[in-house]
């Protein structure tokens, strides 16, 4: 009879575990297996205590200890789940914050010197701001991309230059943005994207995702 109980219990754990098996995230499978296992333990313990001639005190103490263990297990699993996912979202937000700060710094490093140069020009030799941007950042622009020295390659900066407006569309290919489905300028999805628009009136900086 014990073997039958063991087989039934194993099936109640193994089947949901395998049904929800995920090679990346272990939580769905262990939660499914854990629910099956908890139901089994409750039924089994109550069956044994009911069918065995124990004293009333033993039954009450056993049921109480079993309930404490089950409630403890549920609290422990829930807290661990919440805590690990909280840390996951925390790391995501830290990475996004770092990416945002670096992109903002890159943008201002690229656009403020041309803005200054533009307004320092003499009226006799007045060049448009787009032209000054190109001249100032000539060494940094290759194949339509801006390369900022000392910054990792996953920062994708694409300038769109006209005479009066320079638009920098910047994507951090690692950091997550607000919307997972957002289509980024470099073909990725859901990544942090900001834009900096330079005109003669200054820089307008905007977070797009």
């Amino acid at each position: 009879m014990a073997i039958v109980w063991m087989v039934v219990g194993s099936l109640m754990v193994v089947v949901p575990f395998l049904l929800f098996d995920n090679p990346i995230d272990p939580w769905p499978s262990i939660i499914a297996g854990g629910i099956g296992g908890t139901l089994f333990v409750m039924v089994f313990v109550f069956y044994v205590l009911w069918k065995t001639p124990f004293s009333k005190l033993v039954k009450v103490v056993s049921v109480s200890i079993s309930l404490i263990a089950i409630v403890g297990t549920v609290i422990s699993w829930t807290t661990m789940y919440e805590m690990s996912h909280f840390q996951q979202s925390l790391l995501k937000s830290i990475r996004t914050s770092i990416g945002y700060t670096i992109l903002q710094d890159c943008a201002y490093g690229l656009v403020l010197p041309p803005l200054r140069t533009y307004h320092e020009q003499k009226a006799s030799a007045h060049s448009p701001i787009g032209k000054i941007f190109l001249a100032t950042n000539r060494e940094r622009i290759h194949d339509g991309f801006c390369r900022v020295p000392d910054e990792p390659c996953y920062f994708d900066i694409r300038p769109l230059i006209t005479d009066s407006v320079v638009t920098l569309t910047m994507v951090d290919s690692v950091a997550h943005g607000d919307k997972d489905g957002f289509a980024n300028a470099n073909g990725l999805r859901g990544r942090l994207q900001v834009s900096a628009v330079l005109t003669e009136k200054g820089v307008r900086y905007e977070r797009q995702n």
Partner: protein
Amino acid sequence: MNDKTEQPNPDRITEFSPGTIRALIIATCATLLLVFLPYSNRDRSPSPQTFAPPQIVAAGVTVAQSINDFQGMPAERIRLRMRLSLLVSLLVGFVIAPVCVFWTWRFLQLKKLEPGKSDEKKNKHLAAKALMIVAGILLMYFCVSNVSSAILSPMVYNTLKLDNLMDRHRNAILQDLADIDYRAKQYLALPRELGGGYHSFKSTRDSRAERWVTLEELGLSAETKNGTYSIVTVKDDTLLVLKGVGKIPLADGTLPTYEFRSSQILSIPAKVN
């Protein structure tokens, strides 16, 4: 004890009966298995997930995956060995240990009520006790680790959330200060007719009064949801010292205060064709 005059006590002989020895061997083998199973991997180092409660292993995997994501690496597939070990720990904790403990307990209770004291019954009794002890240790480990984790982990979680709140608060203030810094640099670059100071942090709103630019003139508010900000000093139009005071008090009751030194951005000489 005089061997010639006293008869040996039959109860003492049964302590070393085949049933007792068998029970001891089972208990010893089970203990050795428990000790050496974590070393069964190739590099002979103990595998932490072998006996760790499954929720702790899963939490560890989630955090490890987040670190990979943070570094821009793709999510790593969980090894089959780890998935099997999670399944085994679930089976041990929820099925094998409880069935062994409660069923042997039931067996011992029923045997206790049966009349007669045969050797065979005593042997079964001892084997059941040995099994109950081993399974009981496993069940106790599983229950104690879960109940202690249920008591401790909410406290850890709350501390973590509080620390994170303070970190976010600090980062928000520093981000606000960085925004002010960028606006100040732009103010230096823009001419007066476009609302800038053109090489100077002096205010352009009132040309008669000799005063430094204010945050309002930079187009910013001195107070945000994160804190209150002010320009502390301006030195020779090249250095701006900003001060930010947070709104959430620190553990000692004081408000967090940060100073931000901003240097004037240098104009890179451009060759305009």
